[in-house]
């Protein structure tokens, strides 16, 4: 019976990335590889941050500090991803026989963000879905009407979107030297991660979910704007 919860939750979180993958990404091998690579880099960052957590004792007890360290390394992985995409584009350009897509940067950014978001959602839900399949449920400390599993899935869903849009905005900032965009993304990332902690503290789940989804809309709008701007006022096709 609670298999229904497992399927429902999975669909809530993964509908968007699966839809995008099935209808768009799968047609292009570079995009597939980029998606996996970005997720992979993100994984690395998590590995390092938890390795550090493992090794450095004071951080084990301080919840907020460990979240900050984790976010820090995730942002580092974002920078590395940018560098890889930048080099790849140079490589592509040097070959010459390939017709360069004017919107390639934006595509790569979107796909990269989606990869990060999907991988993050998988990790977030791995333990949750395992328990959601059992007969017992657990209430969210904040809202007692909705189970913790469902809240986690909605948070996962929000983070998929957020990671995607953050990557678009940040990469736009890196490529066109509008670094304030990248810094904004870093700030938003910190803020959102700390916001989910509010759920654990017993505040109403709306306190963490509403701002998250508001942020999804906000960053979604921003990503659309920067993409449109890149389209309407194209910079030089050779990257700088």
């Amino acid at each position, binding site marked *: 019976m609670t298999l229904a919860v497992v399927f429902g939750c999975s669909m809530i979180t993964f509908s968007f990335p699966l839809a995008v993958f099935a209808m768009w990404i799968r047609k292009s091998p570079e995009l597939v590889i980029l998606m996996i690579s970005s997720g*992979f880099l993100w994984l690395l960052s998590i590995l390092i941050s938890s390795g550090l957590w493992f090794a450095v004792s004071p951080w084990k007890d301080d919840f907020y500090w460990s979240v900050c360290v984790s976010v820090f390394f995730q942002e580092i992985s974002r920078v590395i991803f940018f560098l890889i995409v930048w080099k790849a584009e140079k490589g592509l350009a040097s070959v010459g026989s390939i017709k360069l897509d004017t919107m390639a940067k934006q595509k790569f950014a979107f796909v990269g963000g989606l990869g990060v978001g999907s991988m993050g959602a998988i990790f977030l839900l791995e333990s949750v879905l395992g328990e959601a399949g059992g007969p017992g449920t657990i209430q969210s400390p904040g809202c007692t009407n909705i189970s913790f599993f469902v809240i986690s899935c909605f948070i996962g869903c929000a983070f998929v979107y957020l990671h995607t849009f953050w990557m678009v905005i940040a990469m736009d900032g890196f490529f066109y030297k509008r670094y304030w965009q990248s810094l904004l993304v870093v700030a938003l990332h910190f803020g959102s991660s700390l916001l989910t902690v509010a759920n654990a503290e017993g505040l109403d789940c709306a306190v963490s979910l509403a701002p998250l989804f508001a942020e999804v809309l906000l960053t979604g709008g921003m990503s659309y704007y920067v993409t449109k701007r890149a389209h309407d006022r194209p910079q030089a096709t050779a990257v700088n």
Partner: protein
Amino acid sequence: RVLTPSRDLFNRSCFYVTIISLTIRSVDRLVRSCCGRDRAMGGRRVASVCGLFLIIFASTLNCVRADDAELDNEHALHGQIYTELSGTNVCVKLVNQDGPIGCDSSFYSGTTAPFSNYIASAADLAWFLSRAPHDPYLAVVAQNMYTTGTVNSLLASGKVEGLLVVGNATRPAEFSPASEYPNQGYGLYEKPLFKWNPQGNGFNLRWFNMPMVFLTNTTDMAAVRRGALLNSPATPTGDSPGWPLWGARMKWLMHAGNDLTACLRRDYCEPLGGRNVWATVAGLPRFDPAVKSKTPTTRQTIMVTTAMDSNALFHDLAFGADADASGMAVLLGVAGALGTGLAPSDKAALERNVLFVGHDGEYYGYIGSSSLAYNMEQSNIPVPGVNVTHVLDIQSVASPAVAAGGQFFHTEPADAALPAQQALVAALKAAAASRGAQLSDADNTADVGLPPTALQRYIKQARAGGRSVAGVAFTDHRRAYTNAFAQSVFDTYPDNVAPADGDQYGLCALANTIAETVYTLAAGEAADPVVAAGLSANCTRIHQYLECFSSDWTCPLFKELVPNLQLSAANAGKPQNRYVSVYRVDGLYTSVFLSALAVESAISKVWVGNDTKACAGKQNHFYLDEWCYNSTQHTTNALSPAFDWDGSHYYVKDALADGNSQFTESNWDNDVPFLVEVFLVPSYTSTIVTLVVGFIVLAASIAGVYLGIRHMSSVLNVKND
């Protein structure tokens, strides 16, 4: 929550890094093969860089496996959701010729249901029966409400799928899960004659087809009581709380089906049984030359018997203070009186031998007595040609009513005219008078017959062989049981036995009476009145036996009797259960009784002072209280004559099936056979709503992405080619 660094996260990321680095390499190869070299150039760079980097990384990194469950987020979540109970004191599944008995759960996933309200009063029960809306439930009943009426009305309501009894300090007024006619069909009488146990509700033989457990562990009780209280209405007339509700999953893994023959054939069930314990007072012809001079094959034997086992619906709680630890204590007192009170010359001069027997499995159709009677008939026991002429069976003799009414002896009305029977009754009455025992004749008329007693089996066996047996059965009731808790968890010490007075509930006088009677009959012509009057049971020891067997096996007496009993300190002050269990398993109580009987009935003894090791290593020698005892104790198999072993399975011998116990117990896996885990149960609707929301999100995502792609392609020229 959000992915905070943790050991679990470290493990998982490490694991996936390794996996995905390998995936990237294979994806790269795939891309190369299907899409051509040039096209894949940029992507390959990415893939190669990542892949190389991480294969190195992963190979140099030692992925740590987290064994520390507390730090592991995943296990922590499971522990937050589920509370696993200790899984003891459960009602299990038995199978006999009439079908299944007892408890079981749905096989594959167990029985999951919310708790009822905490039923601790009649008002709570009434609320549950009339107003609880979210059935089916697992009923949670406090011990004081654990009565026949409560259980029957819960089951009749159709709202209950399981039962958890939460122990507390208050006992119900009466509760007996035995039948109204205990052991009917296994004794002397084809039709039930008298309702010996009118408060019996028959639960011990009923097929509940649902899991049931009796909680005594403090943490278990707290978890279940809390859940049930949270499910209770705020006021006695209020409404039920809504979902999610606290509940549990109860999963029993009983292998047996519902048919006896089939489950025996498949080894899914095993016959109940154990061992009978016996000892003689005067040595055995085979071993003792002085005794050999009598004619071994015709030497008559007087048997003094009792039941060692006990019973309850929850087998782990079969403590049986009145039924039948009191009988065991008296029998040991009799054995002690004769063992020490008769000099070896007196013992050699006995015309009839005296055989003390502890029967096993009596509450399940006289397994022990039917088995012994049958084996003696077939000359299957070590003493050939035992010619039993007298049987004195000691049943429950210490219910609270004996303080006023004393004990009773019962005789089979159809044998009243036999000379041996009359002699026995006369000797008994004389002994009772001389010892001042409050022992009365129960005046069993033909429409009443004998109460449930092993004597019935010996009479039955004798009649089948054309002989007769003179016998009496000792009880604490003249007609209906005075034990309000026969064969239940509430038959405990000291609450269900008579209060101690100067003579320890009259047990000592009873033991002396029986000893004197037995001596008079055994010595026959050579009975010496001085010896008879001098027989004296050890009154303190009788009391200690009763207390030790039914309330505390770590008592000093048992520690001396059975030095390697080895009960942990956690068992101090707690009784051990005496449920007979399957034939393959010998109850610990039989070993303890064996040692006690050996000491009490010893043929001879030597004073060794404080040298506790003086007896060690010598066969048939036991040390107790500064003496080393030499005795003739033995055990024989207690397995119903209906069962036999064909080399690979037990089977029922049709010729002996009728009237003999065919009780078997289901087998189960060793690994958590009885799982009770407490958790919050979601409502069915909420799980479906989650699924539906998922489908809605899926549909919206597909639609949204489709439109988005179209827009991006047409307006923003973000194409994919």
